């Protein structure tokens, strides 16, 4: 009896030790970034964990409009006072994309779950195969389509089209969820005279809250954090159309600014993380049931 208890204690100790080590590994980079964002050491802070001097100036820099400069002697930079613009651009892109693509995904999923039509099987298989190709294979053609057909090169609205256009393909999880909702509910509604559209909006959607939330979350996340597509579509010359990803990347990589904006970059990275963190905190319970929702057929 005693040895059993001892073994349990030993086992738990080992597991907790492992968990502690792992959580340090996971949390340390984030903590480091937070500390950097309050550092007044400039570029030197990159080699330190805890800053020598503490300041809020990095955050003030990001959100000041430079009619009143933080440091009046600081040299002019194209990045000054732009962070808020980029933040709003990204926000608009992410919100609009989120709305459009959530609709696309749910409607496609509903159609494929409830209707039986010619080519349905082929369509789903083809979709599966197409989904295996990474999206950036279409980079160059996307650029030319946006430039020559839509004349949207250099504008973040092009991003909205690109991000949302293909999202209908990601219907699998939602379809799996819709499949679990009994068809007899649809039939009952039809007997009462509901159209297919009414069934979707008034019956299926309210019953599928977790999957709707999950779709909204993922649709918001991908445009919010994307760098590759936004950088080649918007272009480095259109600074007012940049998304935060481009702006933050430029802050630490462009030769013109490389030693200047390190701590401001850290502050920017924290600001970018805030909306997604909030979303996750408030929607977490739905998120978990959403991810697993489509997995079990009842």
């Amino acid at each position: 009896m005693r040895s059993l208890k001892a073994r349990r204690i030993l086992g738990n100790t080992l597991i907790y030790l492992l968990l502690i080590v792992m959580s340090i590994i996971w949390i340390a980079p984030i903590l480091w970034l937070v500390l950097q964002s309050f550092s007044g050491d400039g570029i030197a802070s990159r080699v330190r964990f805890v800053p020598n001097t503490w300041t809020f100036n990095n955050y003030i820099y990001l959100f000041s409009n430079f009619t009143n400069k933080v440091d009046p002697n600081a040299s002019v930079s194209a990045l000054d006072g732009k962070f808020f613009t980029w933040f709003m651009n990204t926000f608009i892109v992410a919100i609009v994309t989120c709305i459009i693509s959530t609709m696309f995904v749910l409607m496609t999923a509903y159609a494929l779950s409830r209707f039986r039509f010619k080519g349905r099987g082929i369509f789903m298989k083809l979709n599966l195969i197409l989904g295996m190709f990474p999206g950036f294979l279409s980079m160059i053609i996307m650029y030319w389509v946006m430039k020559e057909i839509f004349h949207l090169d250099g504008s973040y609205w092009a991003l909205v089209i690109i991000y949302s256009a293909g999202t209908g393909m990601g219907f699998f999880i939602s379809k799996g969820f819709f499949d679990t909702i009994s068809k007899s509910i649809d039939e009952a509604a039809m007997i009462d005279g509901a159209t297919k559209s009414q069934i979707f909006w008034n019956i299926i959607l309210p019953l599928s809250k977790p999957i709707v939330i999950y779709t909204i979350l993922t649709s918001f996340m991908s445009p919010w954090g994307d760098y590759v597509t936004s950088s080649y579509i918007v272009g480095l010359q259109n600074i007012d159309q940049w998304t935060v990803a481009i702006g933050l990347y430029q802050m630490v990589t462009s030769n013109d600014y490389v030693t200047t904006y390190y701590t401001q970059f850290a502050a920017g990275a924290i600001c970018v993380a805030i909306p997604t963190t909030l979303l996750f905190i408030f929607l977490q319970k739905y998120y978990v049931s959403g991810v697993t929702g489509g997995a079990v057929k009842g």
Partner: protein
Amino acid sequence: MKANKLLVLALTAVAAAGLSACGNTTTEKVYSDVNTKINIWATAKEEAVIKNIVDTYNAKQKDETKKFNYKFTAVAESDAGTTLQKDPNVKDAPALLLCADDHISGLANKGIILELKGEFKKTVVDNNTPVSVLGATYNNGIYGYPVTSDNGYFLWYNASTLQENDVTTLEGLLAKAKSLGKKVLMDIPNGWYVNSFFTSPDLCGTDSLRFATEKDPADGVVKTSYTCNWDNANAVAAVEYLSGLLKPYYTDGTLMVGSNEAIAAGFQDKSLIAAVSGTWMEGDLEKAMDGDTLAATKLPTYTVNNKTIQMSSFTGSKIYTINKTRPVAEQKAAAALADLLTTKESQLKRFETRQSIPCNKEAVNDERYTKNVSKGAKALEQQNAFAAVQAQSAEGRYWDIGKAIGQAIIDGELGTYTTWKDFMEYQVGLLRQKQ
């Protein structure tokens, strides 16, 4: 059928007119036209300079139609060339572009930028420092107007700890640092710094590393080949000596490698007393000094076989270049504006506005510059006398080889080779391959 023929004739005529107009671009020198809007891409700091110079010009110009008309877009010098290469006809494409000189070869190779000829070429070559002209050169053609030679490295040091005579030789500097228990930083395992030991005029020469790109007639692919003599007997003796000198200092921590952040942090906590870096560190270092005095000078010398060798460096310039995919009128106006923006007076104005180091021969010696030049800029100018032009010397393939040589110098490991001669011959042989 007849209509088709007419169309072909008309198109040919238009094309011919276009071509002859293209030819004219390089003969007519002053061309400012208020109806020709010049899109300019340049670094944000340049906006005030352009505004100042163009406003002055336009105010003097009585003829309303002969004024410059431009639109400024801020694009970092390090991104301008690469961005334009992706799509020269991008929306609001620039006619005039301020880019780093290492973009020139790529842009010229793809036929995106205009080669200056005749009077235009002569003006550029006559008026500017040789290193800056080399920056604008590709396959013996001049492709732009040099603005500044501001990229490069030299020695920053703490003048409260080190005297001027401590930093004249590499041996002396390291010995002094060790005796004080302090550190010296040079990022030796980095192709951009390691050439410092070889391209010295006292050793292999500033033109000892050169690359050329040409289309291989065998398969039609554009290939790069290098000429490099870093495997000659003197260079091998020097590298062997340097490795013997530097390895013990690197092992005991007196010699550090690392980049900007390590330099700033080291100067802040006073562990570092000297570092090889560039003008971009000036602001951070001044802030880090905390009462001590910051100083800058050319790189030190080292002595091998009783011969004193001045360490070399890489230098880089910024070039105004013209997009030849734009309409001819825009090209002409852009050339005229570039000419105006790079005169002696304009370069001095640029220095006063944004501390940009001039490369116009007269501007460099002008009191307005020499009396007000910053520590870093002055040291860079001293060092530029011994510098190799990076845009002519190195491209993609060099960096890994330079890094390997630098790594071997500080840790003395030659891999499968036993002598420095074999090692250097192997590395230089890799460079010489046409790829």
